């Protein structure tokens, strides 16, 4: 690995979790794998910080957990995104775009 894993910016973990769950339900380990995979290993999420986020998102009704079986035959808790979660994801995406635009403007100035 060329670069060391980067720290996830504060407040963006929720966005990343919702995004990974957008297409299909996943269990906790699955979410961590997916984030690492699509960020090409830039972001490594430790389960220690992932599970609190999952549980809080579940409490807020953005995702819903359900026990199910993995392809290997293990029982695991799968999370799927809810309607409210879809809306939240959309608004967080928009928010993120604004941040990126704003940060970009600042960096490009001068």
């Amino acid at each position, binding site marked *: 690995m060329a670069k060391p894993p980067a720290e996830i910016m504060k407040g963006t973990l929720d966005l990343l979790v919702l995004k990974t769950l957008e297409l299909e339900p996943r269990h906790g380990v699955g979410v961590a794998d997916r984030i690492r995979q699509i960020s090409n290993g830039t972001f490594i999420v430790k*389960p220690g910080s992932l*599970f609190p986020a999952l549980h809080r998102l579940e409490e807020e009704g953005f995702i819903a957990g359900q026990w199910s079986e993995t392809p290997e035959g293990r029982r695991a808790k799968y999370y799927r995104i809810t309607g409210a979660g879809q809306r939240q994801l959309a608004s967080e995406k928009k928010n993120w775009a604004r941040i990126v635009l704003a940060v970009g403007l600042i960096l490009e100035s001068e």
Partner: protein
Amino acid sequence: MRLTAWIASVWRTCFRSGAVERDLDDEMRATVDLLADRYVAGGMNPAEARRAALVELGGVEQVKEQVREHRLAAPLETILLDLRYAWRTLWKAPSFAIVVLATLALGIGANTAIFSVVHAMLLSPLPYRDADRLIFVWSDMTDEGYPRAPLSGPELDDLRARSKTCAAFGAIWANTAALTGDDHPEQLRIGRVTDDFFNVLGAEAALGRTFRAEDARPGAAPTILLSWPVFERRYGADPSLVGRRILVNDRPTTVVGVMPRSFRLLLPPDSSVPDDLQAFQPFPAAMTQGPRGQQFLRVVGRMRPAVTVDQARADIDGVASTISRAFTEYGASGRRFVTVGLQSDDVREIRPALVALFAGVGILLLIACVNVASLLIARAAARRSEIALRLALGAARVRIVRQCLIEGLLLASLGAVAGLAAGWCALRAVTVVRPDALSRIELASIDWPVALFTFGIAIAWGVLFSMAPLTEIYAPDLLPELQRTNRQVDTLRDGVRRTLVVIQMALSVVLLVCAGLLVHTLMRVQNVDPGFRADDALTFRVAIPMQRYRPIAGFNTFARNLDEALRRIPGVQGVGAISHLPYDDLPNWGTPYLADAAMDDASAPNADARAVTPGLMETMGLQLQEGRFFTEADQPGQRPSIIVDDKLAARVWPGRSAIGQHLGVDPGSTGRPTVNMTVVGVVKHVRLRSLVADLTEQIYFPERLILRNPMAYVVRSSRDPAALAADVRAAIAALDPNLPIYDVRPLHTYVDGARAARRFTALLAAGFAVVALLLACVGVYGVMAYAVTRRRREFGVRLALGADPSRLAVAILRDGLTLAIAGALIGVLGAAAAGSLLRAQLYGVAPYDPPSFLITVGMLGVTCLLASWIPARRALAASPMEALRTE
């Protein structure tokens, strides 16, 4: 969205925590399994794979803890945890919990009860529309012996016509009327009112209406307004009664309405208008034409909006000076009015006593809370190692402070609940012992404001006393604390607790001395000689219907027959009748008197006037000093005779005999002393209105000459009052089956009533003081027992080395006594200050009354010795070997 999620989270935390935790456990286990599977697939053996998976996860318990901390309800959850912990610690030490809760229940309960009374009597507005706009007007006749006297009809008219600040004035006069026409004749206490009285007061009828102007017109059909209790008891609450006619004083009278069940007439206690009048009738409008000197109206005024009592007073004083100039009847001194706010005047007499009691229970609560704080400190000391361990393991101090706070608040909340229950019981007890004059106490109840007050003080004290153990825990630096010897730390902590105990002692001394002063005053009042014999005498009132016994000769014959019939009852030693009994609540009757016909009769002094039958003075046991009592010979046609008291005789004819002297008096209440009467007897002054202060002279008219109706009969007999009352009723029914008698009660109950207010405050104060002493005693016991337990080892060594046990015991007792002496010294100073504040409540007792102080200090010393004796004996009873093995 966010809120509902939070509520759902709270709900899960509170009620589904088991399921939520199990689910979290399962998820962690499944996650570890998933991770471990990968390591196994990578070639590890299962045990190593499992360990690697745990490392990758970051520890099952740690992750779980983080999940918990990030829950929406997380702050609440830790509080719940602390609460559960606090509850378990309390549960593990039930004796500690019981002592604390009992202490708080006593302190908070007493406060709740007294606050509910204060709230009902001092703080709540009177139950009338815009009650703060009501005023009460007296005429000021201080020079004649009546600082607060009623007004006359013409004066009411003057106020109505001339006052600019008041919208209306109404008036009332308490009287009686007979309900007849069926088998149960009944005498009612009624209020005679002006037609607008209820409008002025701002009270509506529950059924029908109150009075209107046409009810008072000349020739109007008689009308009556009933109270709810009479309506319910006598007429079965039948609403069709309104508009029907009933017989009142043998005249058909239309019932115009019924007042609500809750209606009470709350006028000043010295206005002689009872709270619970049973019915009302209108005055004829012509009543305002009566003579200016005939003062009988109790006047209530309603101020216009935005007028203050001071403005109304200035305005009414102006009316007084105008009429003083306009009417010669007032003479040189003129007429003065006293204008007071109805609300503040109603509670004028009881306020100082209530405020004193409220202060007393405040001190009691302080003592109770000091006890609880002291107990918590002692417990915190025992838990010091536990807390030190938690701090060493990295627990945040905030967390420990919060836990102390939650423990304190839990105790305080439990204490508040126990206090509410105790307060409810105490209020019931207070209502039972309350004197008749304080019937407004019945309005007191544990309602929302009272419950809020209770929880308020409980929470405030909870926060304060939960901070007490922090002095233990919050050592600025842990290390020196650990390096100190146990003994040094104990001495430091002991200082705090000892100071608390001394404060407790001082506070209980203040309460005990105040209670002692009040009890001593009560004893003095018990021993006051009222001037007549109150025991073995039954009294009742009867109104002889004038319509049925006409002309006046027939009335007198009937009265004499009644006298005779009563005398014939077996066991009766004397019978007499009087217009006003001592300490009754009838409107007083006074007469101006003049010894010198040449004097200005407008400045004539006033005397208390009563009409009595022959035999009354002998029956009541009045003491004749000169001349004779009345006889049957004092009747119309003879020279009119009167009897005066020694006070009047000494004032008018100093150094001379009063017998045979002439006195100008006013038996017909015309306002002027116009009738000349001859003094035939002088009796010793009788305390008729107040046991402690009665300054007006007394004049007795012969009833055969000056007719009063109704009269109160006094029947002297040592027989059981109930059996005697039955015989009296039978004797009267034999004469006239349609004649109601009422107010049947032993004479001594009137005297008891006059003492009741003092007995009430003395009883309550003594109760509080005893509770305070008990609590202080528990405080001393706690400190001494703790100190002795700590020094057991030392005592063991000293006993083993041959120390004299009795000398050790003396040392311990001396320790306890030192606390008592310090507390007593401070307390005596405080009590001296409190005693002078109580001065108005005292009679015949100085604020620095030596017996009260000596007894208090003695009681404190004895209880303190007892409280130290028990732990001392326990320490010395232990065998040296056992003592050495402890710790």
